[in-house]
């Protein structure tokens, strides 16, 4: 009955492709928030470089001497931008948490969900998903605090990376449990944790498969950058389009991951329910 990581990813690709509307919801949200963040900075930037030879030189590569002057003369703008940026990032994360409930619901099965049902699912799972995100961030923070003095050593760096990876995997499968199971919060947390531990090969396997897909997308993007001439107008237009295609592909790989982990959890959880003694009684 169990499905492996490759089958889970195959199901993930299929479900992410079928639910193409989600792409545009995530893309639209990302576009609007990125515009809020980028516009003030780009405006300051444009004022500084549009009339100077230093700005013209920026077409051919980054100019650190110009950047030092830019920071010196626009220090206040950059300082006042930081709190605004943090606030926008926080709002974005909260909206993403709200939407994640709807996304999981759509991607974990073949059922069609309407817009209002999508929002209802989002609000239903919002607080459990927010709680798990807060728990995840707190654990990551405590981990960083614990090893911050030792990070100069490569052994601790490796341990840190592995620990962060494990925490993220565990949190993700708890999220899947939150949406798929009907139970109280802590039972779902327990079930998500035990599922990840019992099916470690499949759960971590899904992660590695999705990481390979993401690495291929990133590799393609860098390959494009190395061959594209962004000093001419046509090259700049192509770069703008490629940047947006890259973002869409990243969203696609993220949705594949959502769908794959939901499929893995949904298909393989029967085994856990079967070994539960209370259920047997």
């Amino acid at each position, binding site marked *: 009955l169990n499905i492996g990581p490759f089958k889970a990813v195959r199901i993930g690709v299929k479900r992410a492709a079928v639910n193409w509307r989600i792409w545009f919801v995530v893309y639209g949200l990302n*576009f609007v928030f990125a515009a809020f963040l980028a516009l003030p900075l780009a405006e300051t930037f444009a004022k*500084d470089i549009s009339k100077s*030879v230093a700005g013209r030189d920026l*077409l051919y590569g980054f100019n650190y001497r110009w950047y*030092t*002057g830019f920071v010196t003369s626009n220090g206040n703008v950059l300082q006042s931008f930081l709190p605004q940026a943090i606030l926008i*990032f926080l709002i974005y994360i909260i909206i993403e948490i709200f939407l994640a409930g709807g996304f999981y619901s759509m991607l974990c099965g073949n059922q069609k969900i309407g817009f209002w049902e999508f929002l209802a699912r989002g609000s239903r799972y919002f607080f459990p998903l927010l709680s798990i995100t807060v728990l*995840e961030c707190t654990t990551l923070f405590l981990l960083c605090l614990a090893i911050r003095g030792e990070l100069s050593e490569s052994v601790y760096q490796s341990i840190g990376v592995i620990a962060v990876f494990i925490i993220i995997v565990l949190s993700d499968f708890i999220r899947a449990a939150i949406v798929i199971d009907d139970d109280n919060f802590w039972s779902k947390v327990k079930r998500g944790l035990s599922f990840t531990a019992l099916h470690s090969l499949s759960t971590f396997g899904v992660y590695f498969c999705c990481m390979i897909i993401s690495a291929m997308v990133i590799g393609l993007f860098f390959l494009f950058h190395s061959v594209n001439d962004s000093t001419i107008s046509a090259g700049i237009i192509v770069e703008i389009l490629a940047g947006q295609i890259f*973002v869409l592909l990243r969203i696609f790989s993220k949705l594949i991951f959502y769908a794959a982990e939901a499929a893995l959890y949904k298909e393989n959880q029967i085994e856990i329910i079967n070994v539960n003694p209370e259920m047997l009684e």
Partner: protein
Amino acid sequence: VNFYNGRLTISAVPFFILLISPFSLHDIGWLFDRYICGVNTVDFAVKSISYYKETDLNTNASTFFTQVVVTSSGWTRPDSNNVSAPIDLRLAFEDGTVIDTSWSETGDNIPIRQTFTFKTKSAPVYAQLDPWNKITDDFNYANNSLMVHDFLRPVVKWADRIFDFFQNALLSTGVLV
């Protein structure tokens, strides 16, 4: 530095100034007093560039009159000896030619703002102070030059890169969701 048996040996700065001053055609006290030993910052700037065109109706030949206003602040100002630091100025034209000149004056009432006028056969493209980056501690390099017309390609390119950066940064926060 002192000459000792025909060789240079390390000595105090005042002696070094005394040693090289006779060989220099200009007063270079500013170099030691303000640039090397001073703590003031420096900022050169091209404040404006404007031009007008005159056409001879008989020969149909055009002449361009260009005015460039430059300023300096910080240690380049005239010192007690009324000597200012010299700075190179380059003016580039549409036909690819350039005019290189320098702003270096001595005497009373040296202005920290100077207007240069050029009469040429081609329209100007940009004016640039210190084109060879000799004054390395000019704290705002961006205002060292001014183009006659806005050059939008780098603006579009870098605005897109800033936008891309934030799009990807926002997507990367998805690891927490």
